[in-house]
């Protein structure tokens, strides 16, 4: 015997490996064994080949590379003995997968084995094939497998069916060949074959619609009968699990019935009785029974509508929900979510149970329940549901709070019946979980508050009270600070009291105290502090008596290291000191923010009109159910298809609140080069004169759609004028927003920045293309081009397609054209809009190549050209 061959038996090797105490030891043992095996392979050692392979498989399971054993597998498969073949196939399944090319070599052996006289060997081959065959192998061996579907031995038939499933998955085209044999399989008595046949049938239907039709027509009745026999069958010890005969067969049958019945009324009718029978008679105290019921419910939900059955199904789900077992509840919640689209009424009945599930200890159940509740909310039940949820918010875990808050906020926004309730609920949420509340949400709250003018007093008092009790939640502090700033006088005067309120007395200095503490707090972040500063400015105008004290507070931040605070502090300080005469006008009450345009913006539905006059169109929808507005849609999500200026609720809101500290990434606005802004500012503060008319400034109107969104620092400090930096001058235009009532500047029509001359981009004997340019001023790199095609010939052009190509430093975005048929002789035009972004703006001008294709009298025409005459500074 070869001295290198491993004398150890499989068992011993395993024992040796397990006895290793450290990983290094184990690796050593494995390496030795691998070496021995490799030597044995080289020697072509016949005797212990299968043992070696078994060892190799074990080593593979431990995670070591074993590629050298693959050829061994093949040799083993080719050898005549059954044990060798068995190990060979096993090795094949384990060590290789379908992507290896080595598999092709096996095909021939497998083919021979499939025709072997020994049925166990046939079984082995089928097994291996079913696990690992690739598409080519499938194609080659499909006829064999088909033949075997009718073999005399049920086990072989079973294995052949399983194999066919894989074949069909790999090569769907072969599906047709299997239809007929499968129909025979469905009539089997042997459960094993029946199950596999049914599975094969299900997959066939998924893969091929003809199969689906065929089975629907021919086999539905047969299947229903089989299921009925099964359900009514007496106790059969062979197939019994927990008292139910072969639940697996039940489930598969139900699944197949589902596939057959979906979308087809006749088939669904045939199934109704049996489904009802299964649903009512199955016991549900064991998991097996529950599994069947679950599948039954799913089937009922998917097939054509039948009211009675549906109610039955939902009742079963309701029973599941109150089950103590977590699994069942989870499954029920899942199903209910799908059921709700079908029949919301029925699900409402189980609302209470679902609410209980929101408080469950298991995280996945909680999540599901919450989503379900969210889907269940409607106008009638929103109040009690929200109350429950908000109560739960107080006791929920940290990680769950975020989700919960978001859901609550969106529920409140979508369904709030009246403003006062909305504000109340939002206050509660903010008090509890303000830190989890997203920015858009409290922005929206501010909008609503500003719209509800009768509730201003109530709101500001409630906020004040809230702030007394909890001051840790950032968003709460911000909203409160803003409101106190705006409506401080209402707070002090107790104006607009509602019956439900208790009177509180707040002096001016109390109000200032509160804001001061907001600034001084360690934990306040930049946004809060900035908002507090501006609130102080407003208060200094509303409460002249506290002016001095406020000035002191503001002045403390003169030396702040943060530019934002320093700037504000300096500017506000100088207003308070030197410009008392304009101060009150500067910080007049903000006009109502247009909820409709705000909401419309959030729904990204339409480009809103350019409202140019001050304080326009303020609808005060009271009790608005903004079901159209997608709640929590990102306000800064400026939709792409609105190149023209459109209302940018979120952005201007941010400007107004003076909180947008990030450099503007998008500006749809019209305002200009900063320098121009400065001029405007200077002019503005020499009171009474109109701001420069040179297209430089956007309308001061808050509600106007064209707004600039430069970093919103309301800059009022004129005396620092000449050195106004870019940042602050852009804020000058922003300040114009605030100066709403004050600036006599006439509303400007939306302006598109410096005018660029339009060019004739391309002209041939039959076609002219003109380009008009516009730029968004904050974004000098991007140009919007509006192209107009005119047909100069006397034939109509159809199938008009325009394509353009640009060099690498440019980015091009093409919008769909207005049409693709160009009438003759300039009687009509096609317009198409493009957006070009020049990453080398200022260094390289734009160039573009065109290709225009159209048909004239059925004949294709192609025109190409290059545009070099773009204006230089685009």
């Amino acid at each position, binding site marked *: 015997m070869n001295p290198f061959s491993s004398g150890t038996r499989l068992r011993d090797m395993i024992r040796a490996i397990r006895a290793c105490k450290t990983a290094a030891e184990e690796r050593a043992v494995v390496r030795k064994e691998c070496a021995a095996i490799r030597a044995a392979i080289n020697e072509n050692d016949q005797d212990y080949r299968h043992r070696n392979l078994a060892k190799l498989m074990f080593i593979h399971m431990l995670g070591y590379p074993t590629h050298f054993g693959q050829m061994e597998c093949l040799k083993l498969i080719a050898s005549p003995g059954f044990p060798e073949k068995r190990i060979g196939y096993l090795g094949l399944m384990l060590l290789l997968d379908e992507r290896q090319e080595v598999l092709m070599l096996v095909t021939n052996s497998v083919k021979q084995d499939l025709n072997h006289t020994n049925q166990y060997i046939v079984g082995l081959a089928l097994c291996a094939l079913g696990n690992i065959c690739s598409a080519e192998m499938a194609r080659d061996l499909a006829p064999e497998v088909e033949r075997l579907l009718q073999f005399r031995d049920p086990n072989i038939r079973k294995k052949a069916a399983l194999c066919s499933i894989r074949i069909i998955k790999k090569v769907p085209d072969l599906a047709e060949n299997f239809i007929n044999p499968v129909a025979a399989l469905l009539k089997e008595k042997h459960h094993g074959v029946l199950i596999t046949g049914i599975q094969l049938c299900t997959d066939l239907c998924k893969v091929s619609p003809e199969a689906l039709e065929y089975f629907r027509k021919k086999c539905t009745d047969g299947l229903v009968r089989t299921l009925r026999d099964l359900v009514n069958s007496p106790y059969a010890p062979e197939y019994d699990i927990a008292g139910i005969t072969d639940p697996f067969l039940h489930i598969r049958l139900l699944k197949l019935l589902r596939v057959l019945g979906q979308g087809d009324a006749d088939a669904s009718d045939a199934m109704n009785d049996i489904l009802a029978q299964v649903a009512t008679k199955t016991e549900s105290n064991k998991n097996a029974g529950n599994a069947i019921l679950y599948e039954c419910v799913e089937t009922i939900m998917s097939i054509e509508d039948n009211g009675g059955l549906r109610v039955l199904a939902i009742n079963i789900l309701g029973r599941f929900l109150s089950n103590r077992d977590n699994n069942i509840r989870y*499954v029920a919640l899942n199903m209910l979510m799908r059921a709700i689209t079908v029949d919301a009424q029925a699900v409402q009945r189980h609302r209470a149970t679902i609410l209980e599930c929101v408080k469950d200890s298991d995280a996945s159940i909680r999540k599901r329940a919450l989503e379900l509740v969210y889907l269940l909310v409607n106008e009638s039940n929103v109040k009690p549901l929200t109350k429950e949820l908000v109560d739960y918010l107080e006791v929920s875990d940290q990680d769950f709070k975020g989700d919960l808050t978001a859901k609550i906020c969106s529920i409140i926004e979508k369904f709030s019946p009246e403003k006062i309730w909305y504000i109340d609920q939002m206050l509660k949420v903010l008090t509890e979980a303000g830190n989890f509340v997203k920015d858009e949400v409290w922005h929206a709250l501010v909008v609503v508050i500003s719209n509800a003018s009768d509730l201003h007093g109530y709101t500001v008092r409630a906020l004040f009270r809230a702030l007394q009790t909890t001051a840790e939640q950032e968003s709460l502090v911000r909203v409160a600070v803003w409101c106190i700033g705006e409506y401080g006088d209402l707070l002090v005067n107790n104006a607009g009291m509602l019956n439900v309120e208790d009177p509180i007395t707040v002096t001016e200095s109390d109000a200032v105290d509160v804001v001061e503490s907001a600034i001084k707090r360690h934990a306040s972040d930049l946004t809060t502090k900035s908002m507090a500063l501006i609130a102080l400015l407003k208060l200094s105008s509303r409460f002249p008596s506290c002016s001095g004290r406020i000035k002191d507070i503001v002045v403390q931040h003169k030396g702040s290291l943060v530019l934002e605070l320093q700037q504000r502090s300096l500017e506000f300080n100088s207003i308070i000191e030197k410009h008392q005469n304009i101060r009150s006008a500067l910080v007049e009450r903000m006009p109502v923010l247009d909820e409709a345009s705000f909401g419309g913006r959030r729904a990204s539905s339409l480009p809103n009109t350019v409202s140019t006059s001050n304080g326009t169109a303020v609808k005060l929808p009271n009790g608005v159910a903004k079901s159209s507005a997608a709640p929590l849609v990102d306000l800064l999500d400026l939709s792409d298809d609105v190149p023209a200026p459109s209302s940018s609720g979120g952005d201007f809101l941010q400007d107004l609140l003076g909180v947008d500290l990030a450099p503007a990434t998008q500006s749809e606005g019209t305002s200009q080069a900063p320098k121009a802004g400065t001029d405007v500012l200077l002019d503005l503060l020499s009171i009474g004169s109109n701001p420069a008319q040179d297209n430089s400034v956007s309308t001061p109107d808050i509600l106007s759609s064209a707004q600039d969104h430069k970093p919103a620092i309301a800059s009022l400090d004129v005396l620092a004028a000449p050195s106004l930096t870019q940042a602050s001058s852009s804020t000058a235009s922003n300040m114009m927003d605030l100066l709403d009532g004050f600036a006599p500047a006439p509303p400007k029509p939306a302006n598109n920045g410096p005018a660029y001359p339009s060019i004739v981009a391309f002209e041939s004997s039959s076609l002219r293309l003109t380009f008009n340019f516009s730029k968004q001023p904050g974004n000098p790199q991007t140009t919007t081009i509006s192209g107009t095609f005119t047909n100069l010939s006397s034939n109509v052009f159809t199938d008009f397609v325009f394509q353009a190509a640009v060099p690498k430093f440019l980015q091009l975005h093409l919008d769909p054209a207005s049409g693709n048929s160009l009438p003759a002789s300039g009687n009509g035009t096609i317009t198409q809009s493009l957006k070009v972004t020049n990453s080398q703006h200022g260094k390289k001008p734009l160039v573009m190549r065109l290709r225009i294709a159209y048909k004239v009298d059925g004949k294709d025409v192609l025109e190409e050209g290059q545009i070099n005459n773009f204006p230089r500074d685009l």
Partner: protein
Amino acid sequence: MIRFILLQNRQGKTRLAKYYVPLEDSEKHKVEYEVHRLVVNRDPKFTNFVEFRTHKVIYRRYAGLFFSLCVDITDNELAYLECIHLFVEILDHFFSNVCELDLVFNFHKVLVLP
């Protein structure tokens, strides 16, 4: 559709792994590791179904071994739980009172079963 079956002990050693979808060896190891982590840390009170990447893992613990099945999202979980139980019963009958060591030493027999 079952994607893979894993039998792992509490320490994370895989006693049996049968894959029905093609995966690289390194991916297989990653998957085994992740599934183990997922399954071992779950409280027994929680449901037996966990979401894993884009599929579901249905698992059950029998003594020191975790039997995990990875299936598609749309499958009936309760039925697979029954499958797992059936598998365990078969192993029991096959080895008469099976224990983990039986599976270790006779892995080549076990592999044929699923």
